[in-house]
């Protein structure tokens, strides 16, 4: 299955915020986590993550520091800021609404007739 470009783009921000809500992380590890969480279905060019991280940083949702990997390599770490936590909560609410709406519409045929049946 190949997930459409627009959907990937829309899901990228809440996913990255969510992963950083689990704790501080860095680019490569974030992508590993995305692929782990989606069973490898949700993918984009690795490099595209970085402009997204920089945008979130500019908006003040995340903060970055340069650190080192265990092997001594320079590495940029990101963590959620206070406004990022709020943005994440907001995104989460919005996606919950979308998810619920989709659930409803997919169970439509069965769902409505059952509901109607129950009411009568």
């Amino acid at each position, binding site marked *: 299955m190949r997930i459409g470009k627009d959907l990937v783009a829309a899901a990228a921000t809440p996913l990255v915020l969510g992963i950083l809500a689990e704790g501080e992380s860095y680019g490569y590890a974030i992508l590993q986590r995305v692929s782990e969480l989606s069973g490898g279905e949700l993918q984009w060019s690795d490099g*595209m993550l970085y402009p997204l991280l920089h945008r979130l940083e500019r908006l003040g949702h995340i903060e970055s520091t340069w650190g080192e990997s265990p092997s001594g390599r320079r590495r*940029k770490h990101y963590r959620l800021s206070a406004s990022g936590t709020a943005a994440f909560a907001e995104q989460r609410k919005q996606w919950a609404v979308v998810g619920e709406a989709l659930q409803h519409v997919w169970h439509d045929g069965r769902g409505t007739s059952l509901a109607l049946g129950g009411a009568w």
Partner: protein
Amino acid sequence: MTYDERGVDEAGRDELGLDEQITLWRSYMADRPAVAQPDVDELEAHLRDQIDALTASGLAPDEAFLVAVRRLGRIDDLSREFAREHSERLWKQLVIGEPHAARREPAGLWTALLLAIAAGVGLKLPALFGVTLSSDPDFYLRNAPVLVLPFLAAYFLVRRRSGAATVAAVAAFFIAAAVVLNAYPFAEAGATEPLAVVHAAVALWIVTGIGYVNGDWRSGRVRMDYIRFTGEWVVYFVLIALGGGVLAALTLGVFSAIGMDASQFVAEWMLPCGATGAVVIAAWLVEAKQSVIENIAPVLTKLFTPLFTLMLLALIASAVVQHDFIDSQRDLLIIFDVVLIVTVGLLLYSMSARDPERPAGWFDTLQLVMVAAALVVDLFVLIAMIGRIDAYGASANKLASLGLNLILLVNLAGAAWLQLRFVRGTVRYPALERWQTSYLPIYLAWAAIVVAVFPPIFAFA
């Protein structure tokens, strides 16, 4: 040539070790103006992590390198994404992703030349109907903004291939300004007419920005691009004006040496048409010679910010010693307005030349001192103005100065507060940029009010 064409070919693969391949990839990546050095470092760290993981799962290093590079995405696509996020790094290159092509051709030179000539000719058109500079200087002074700036706006609209809606919006503003400036029955030697002209120039300059950003005026980042453009444009225009002054002086001198009087030609043709054309040519230069200016802007701001800070502090000190602001002459108060405008201009100019990702340093502290000093001066002037209005009653001039002062006061107060928080590390730099870019419409609104509403209120006097 892209990385994929060079670095991946068979011969190259045999010869290069992993580190050389990464170095080569780095150099291609770093070649893109939208991708800064730290970004390349970050991407390289990613690349090496990926290569480690792939070699651990059994791939040979060069195969792992190829897979990792492929997964990172094509350099063109990647640099385009970076350019979207970091437009300040290649702000003038609106054709994102083709930096080399854009650099080679003298972009828009012919458009600029044609429009500069058209602007010069356009300035002389009213002379066909007997309205010349010497017979009716008032007409030219009154219409200066609508005679000059449409050509600059047209330059942007042509260069950006703007859509009909953008063209119509910009044209509507210009037509409205022309109608107001010429239909209002301004009184001879009144104050509302010069006020309307100056504010029309400011308003139309901001409207020209709609052309510059190709209608995308809601975005704070492109507004900052236009602020940056304005600063560079002033630098180029002053340079051209200096050259034009030398040319005019020499023309006068050399023709009088052979017994001919060129003063009529210089005053009627060379200076007005030259200055009008220079408005468009300076705009073209800003867009074409970006890298030259990039070196000048930070130097100019570093040079003049300390000097202006000193001047403002000295001003405060002498005002405190003399404490007679309320009785100051009107001219004196107007010069204070100019000082405040230049200070805000300097602040905006250094802001547009700054890398938003750099952490706070000594220069930001200095700017805080400058803004705070300007704020104090603004308060002094405001008190003096209110005192004058209280004592002598309101006039168009006084209310226009008062309004401008209040607007600058709010701007400076916000700027000082954000700058303080930035220096103390509690706020990030883009917040400062946002404050200034979202303030632009307020200037436009105020200028429009002074142009359209002030004259009727003050009976065109």
